[in-house]
């Protein structure tokens, strides 16, 4: 009888105070749902970062100029010659391709539409592969276009949409800073990682951009592609050696350029999202704890309110274990039902994207949150239950 009887008494006890039971369950529900949902949001953002790592290509290296502070001589800027030295070096087998990059900004005009793209990039065709930019329509510009400084451009998908809307941009002429460019191609959409839009870009041959905007001085970056993800370290060493030569730097501690690879950049960002996830999890855990305290509170009220009833039951010969079991069953039922509904709410909620992040549910968080909620119910319910069960019958009966 015992187990079945206890559950029956417990259900009866909960049903006697429906509103109160429902509100307590709501506390647990919110706790469990927020654990699942917030962890899913954190996880979702780290999944997005991971995807963007792969989309950027793990074997590309970025060389940029850095003025080594404290050095008396001004840092030598990166130049097209540096890029050529890297590209033509015969003793750098890990370097696959090299693309010098200048970036600028300006307003693009098409007909009467005016739009300022996020970035105007002047570079070599190798840039497309190194930066993992794929063409969706039309074609890349060619090495020949670079040699002849042709006024052609490839547009990122965002820029293309802003300027042309539904129109086909291929072959159309746009004007940037007074220079007319013929659109040869549109890139595939990479998707925003939340910080900036990699699709809001105009890419044109290096000399064309230098001629029209930046002048033929230094370049902002040199993008280098290693032969594979495994040879990036080797390529990095080669680049350092060659550029130290062209920049006439003897001391490796005083180099005036910086080489970074995408993987290290993005793993730094991934660790940021991990911190974010942990913070969200902590907030959620607190709300789960608050739900647990809600159970304790309600069970304490219930026990106090039903002290006389406990006395009657004990006077009729209810063993301590049965009283304990009845109240524990009540608190466990509260937490199991609350947590079950919380899991449901969390999973349903994770189908909607939150602040631009698509939540990805972590299966362990569902199990974990459920188990913790039930454990909290047992743990926090056991104090009031134990208090109820250890009352002497006459003391319980005399309770006002």
């Amino acid at each position, binding site marked *: 009888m015992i187990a079945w009887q206890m559950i029956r008494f417990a259900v009866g006890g909960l049903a006697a105070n429906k509103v109160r039971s429902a509100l307590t369950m709501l506390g647990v529900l919110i706790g469990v749902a927020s654990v699942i949902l917030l962890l899913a949001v954190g996880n979702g953002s780290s999944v997005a970062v991971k995807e963007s790592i792969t989309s950027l290509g793990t074997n590309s290296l970025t060389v940029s100029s850095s003025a080594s502070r404290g050095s008396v001589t001004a840092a030598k800027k990166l130049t097209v010659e540096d890029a050529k030295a890297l590209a033509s070096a015969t003793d750098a087998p890990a370097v696959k391709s090299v693309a010098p990059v200048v970036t600028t900004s300006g307003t693009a005009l098409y007909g009467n539409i005016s739009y300022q793209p996020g970035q105007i990039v002047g570079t070599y065709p190798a840039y497309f592969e190194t930066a993992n930019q794929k063409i969706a329509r039309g074609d890349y510009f060619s090495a020949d276009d670079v040699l002849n400084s042709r006024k052609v451009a490839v547009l990122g998908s965002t820029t293309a949409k802003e300027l042309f809307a539904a129109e086909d941009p291929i072959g159309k002429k746009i004007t940037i800073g007074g220079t007319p460019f013929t659109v040869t191609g549109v890139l595939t959409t990479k998707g925003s990682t939340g910080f900036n839009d990699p699709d809001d870009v105009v890419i044109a041959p290096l000399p064309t951009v230098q001629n029209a905007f930046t002048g033929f001085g230094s370049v902002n970056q040199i993008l280098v592609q290693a032969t594979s993800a495994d040879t990036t370290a080797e390529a990095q060493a080669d680049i350092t050696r060659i550029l130290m030569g062209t920049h006439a730097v003897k001391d490796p501690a005083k180099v005036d350029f910086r080489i970074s690879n995408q993987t290290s950049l993005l793993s730094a960002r991934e660790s940021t999202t991990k911190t974010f996830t942990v913070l969200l999890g902590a907030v959620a855990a607190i709300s789960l704890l608050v739900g647990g305290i809600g159970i304790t509170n309600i069970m304490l009220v219930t026990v106090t309110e039903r002290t006389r*009833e406990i*006395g*009657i*039951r*004990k*006077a*009729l*010969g*209810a*063993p301590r274990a049965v009283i304990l079991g009845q109240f524990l069953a009540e608190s466990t039922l509260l937490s199991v039902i609350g947590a079950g509904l919380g899991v449901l709410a969390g999973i349903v909620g994770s189908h909607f994207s939150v602040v631009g992040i698509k939540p990805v549910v972590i299966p362990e968080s569902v199990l974990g949150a459920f188990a913790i909620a039930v454990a909290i119910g047992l743990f926090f319910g056991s104090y009031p239950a134990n208090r109820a069960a250890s009352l002497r019958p006459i003391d319980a009966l005399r309770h006002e």
Partner: protein
Amino acid sequence: MSGGKPPVIQIRRVTKSYGHGDAVVHALRGPLGPDGAPLGVDLDIAEGDYVAVMGSSGSGKSTLMNILGCLDVPTAGRYLLDGADVGHLDEGQLALVRNRKIGFVFQSFNLVPRTTALAQVELPLAYAGVKAGERRRRALAALTLVGLAERAGHKPNQLSGGQQQRVAVARALVTAPAMLLADEPTGNLDSRSTEEVLGIIDGLNARGRTVVVITHEDEVARHAKRVVRLVDGAIVSDVRQAPVDGPPPALAAGVVA
């Protein structure tokens, strides 16, 4: 007293007091010793006896009954139930004694709120581990005995005071306990219902159960085989009206008549 059997209830120098120091209340004290200290109450009740406890309000009747029913523990003294010292029993054994040996009717009914009369009466059986079908059958039989079969589905707040009291009686006798302890079981009943309830109690006693009733009414006391009077926590008189072995006086009179 009668037979060779030891008494079911033996109370030795039992006292019960509440509070401390000057504010102390001796609810049970017995005669005072030469130095003015309470000596405690002694009382033996034989198996099959039918005892009425009388006394004015606050004289310690309920206090005594709670100790007999293992609901309260005396401040000092020993209580032997069936020869075993109750003070030495642990929680579980006490629960078993309350469930199997004792049927208790409270002065204030003490029904479980929001619970139907039937479920109410089933409770002691449920704690005794009786199966659902059997439980129902016996609970209904007990309710029928107190004339409430058609009220089985009613909750305490749907029952009159007298009906609640009868449910409490049914609940006390449903386990067929060896001892029935009733604290003013007829306090809220009209004379007709009183006679009915007393008839049930007489019947139980006639079948060998030990009965202790607290009452204010001489009508009720007349049904008992023995009347104990309490004044200020001490027994002042102990009168036997009928032999322990025979039927209760009311039934005996009925047989004669």
